[in-house]
């Protein structure tokens, strides 16, 4: 019962993250995903692991916040320019409505796979598969690198979850190493967005 209380909001906020157009909603959803995963870990593993997850998630979102704010605030023209320079895949990539379809597809896939391949117990299996598929879809289908980055961070959560389920008694070093990876990944993503925006502005001006 406890697990379901967490699972339902986890599914909702992860879906919101994948389809949201506003950066504030996306960042808040990412933070909520981290907090719900840590709550989940508090129930099924230990409070220490859960606390480490919550601290990592908060740090990740704090690191992303200034970069996202710089990208998506300002005039309409500045935001349009930011979207152009962050677009890595070019013309022909999928658009936002397709991500909604992708989220539904990921949900269906997660339900089917969790029943066909129960790697870990019951609802845990659905939770990590849902996050993994949604993260993969964001990485593969997204038009811009910001969404790709958010997809990567969802994937980090999924791997973290399945790993914790398999090896319940994790060492402090293992938790620390994975938390460091998540934080450095967020820092790199934030820096790459900022650099691409700064250099892309010059690139567009030269065109």
């Amino acid at each position: 019962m406890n697990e379901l209380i967490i699972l339902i909001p986890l599914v909702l906020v992860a879906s919101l993250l994948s389809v949201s157009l506003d950066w504030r909603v996306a960042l808040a959803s990412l933070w909520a995903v981290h907090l719900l995963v840590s709550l989940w870990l508090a129930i099924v593993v230990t409070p220490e692991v859960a606390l480490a997850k919550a601290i990592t998630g908060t740090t990740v979102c704090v690191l992303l916040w200034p970069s996202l704010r710089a990208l998506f605030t300002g005039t309409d023209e500045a935001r349009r320019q930011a979207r152009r320079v962050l677009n890595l895949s070019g013309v022909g990539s999928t658009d936002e409505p397709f991500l909604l379809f992708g989220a539904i597809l990921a949900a269906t896939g997660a339900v089917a796979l969790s029943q066909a391949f129960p790697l870990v117990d019951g609802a845990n299996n659905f939770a990590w598969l849902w996050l993994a598929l949604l993260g993969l879809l964001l990485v593969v289908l997204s038009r811009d690198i910001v969404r790709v980055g958010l997809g990567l961070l969802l994937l980090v959560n999924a791997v973290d979850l399945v790993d914790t389920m398999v090896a319940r008694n994790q060492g402090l070093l293992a938790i620390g190493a994975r938390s460091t990876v998540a934080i450095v990944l967020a820092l790199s993503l934030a820096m790459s967005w900022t650099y691409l925006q700064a250099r892309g502005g010059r690139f567009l001006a030269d065109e």
Partner: protein
Amino acid sequence: MTYLSLALLVVAPVVLASGAAAAPRRTAHALAILAMIVVAAGVLLTQPQQSLLVGNTALGLTEIGRLELAFLAALGVLLTGYHYLSGRVSALPVLLPALLASTAAGRTFGPSLLVAASFLQLAAILASLLMVSEQPDWQAGVAGAVYLTLSALGGMALLFGFVLADLQRISPGGLVTVPFVVAVLAIGVALQWGVAPLYFWLPNAFQRAGPAGAALAISFLGPATLGLLIQALSAQPQLVADETVTRFLTYGSLFTAVFGALATLAPAKLRRTLGYVLVADLGYVLAGVATFTRIGLAGAALHMAHRSLTALLLLASATELERVDRGATDVRPPAPYLWGTVLVGTLSLLGVPPLAGFAANWAIYQAISLTDWRLAIALQGTSLVCLAAVLSALGRLRRSYPHPWRPPTALETTLMVAAVAVALWGLAPGPALGAIHRAAGELPFLKPF
């Protein structure tokens, strides 16, 4: 391993990297080189059979791990030297010691594969950070962002693969089968190395990213990933028992060699063509590993080391050559030094006898000929295609060089000396091949030959 060697391998480089962050350019480079020397000293002080208990974790370094870290420290010195001489300003002196510390930390964890894979992922993210920030143009940033995305995906595939490997070991014959685990791990390794069809970042980084960032991703993380692979197979030897898996890995190596060779024929800039040569070249490494023999793995490790040195040389000389062709150094009359360095580096990489690449390839030819000699011929054929493509691209870049040639600059001299060293070490390959072969003898998953 002792607390002192652990401090030299992991703590000291991080401290020196922090110092480099606050120091002026010359001091920062000196501190980075000092960090490499300190790590080499840590390697020398570490006894392979000795482990150190920290909490519940036993830390140690195998003989092959020692060789890997010593090689990476030497490579780091060369890269820092080039970076200093070329007058470039980037975060390399700060990131390189941190990257080496991360690789060393991963290697000391032995059977804790998830921790080791996390440290490799950390190193890859640091390399991408440098790639994104090194050059002032947008395309270089895009190359860095693509590498960040694909290497992070690769790192996560490796982490997931190790979780699956644990599950498979706990319940053999269950839902998780050996081929499935190997498939996931293969995707992770392919993304980290740039194996076809997951190669996209490699030619892109070689052509567009700055030389330091691309060198870290190709020359530094290539051997580090091979080190993690060896560490993983030592901890989970059940993964190499399936003959079907071995056959698929061998076909995969041939596929990347053929794909890379065909891609070099497409009209492109020299640096992109060289990037595809490196994709094709991974076929040798994969084929050597997939034999799971001592000689095959020793050949693969030697080839990876040679590839790393040559890739660094080619990146440096091709980038400088491009700068000259763009007119950045028009005050000096043209001279064929850099062009010649690229030529020698390419001939050496592609294993033209008697240059060093041939010595690195020879062990692999021996190992794969035991199972199928046609594979060795096919690999040789792909090298010939690559050679023709690069010679053609180089021919187009050749300018007229008025006699008498001007004296070479310090950077050109360094690159030429490096080219000669990289090309000629293979005339006496015994010590290097022997050391790796001896170290490979301790690995539990290899066949005796």
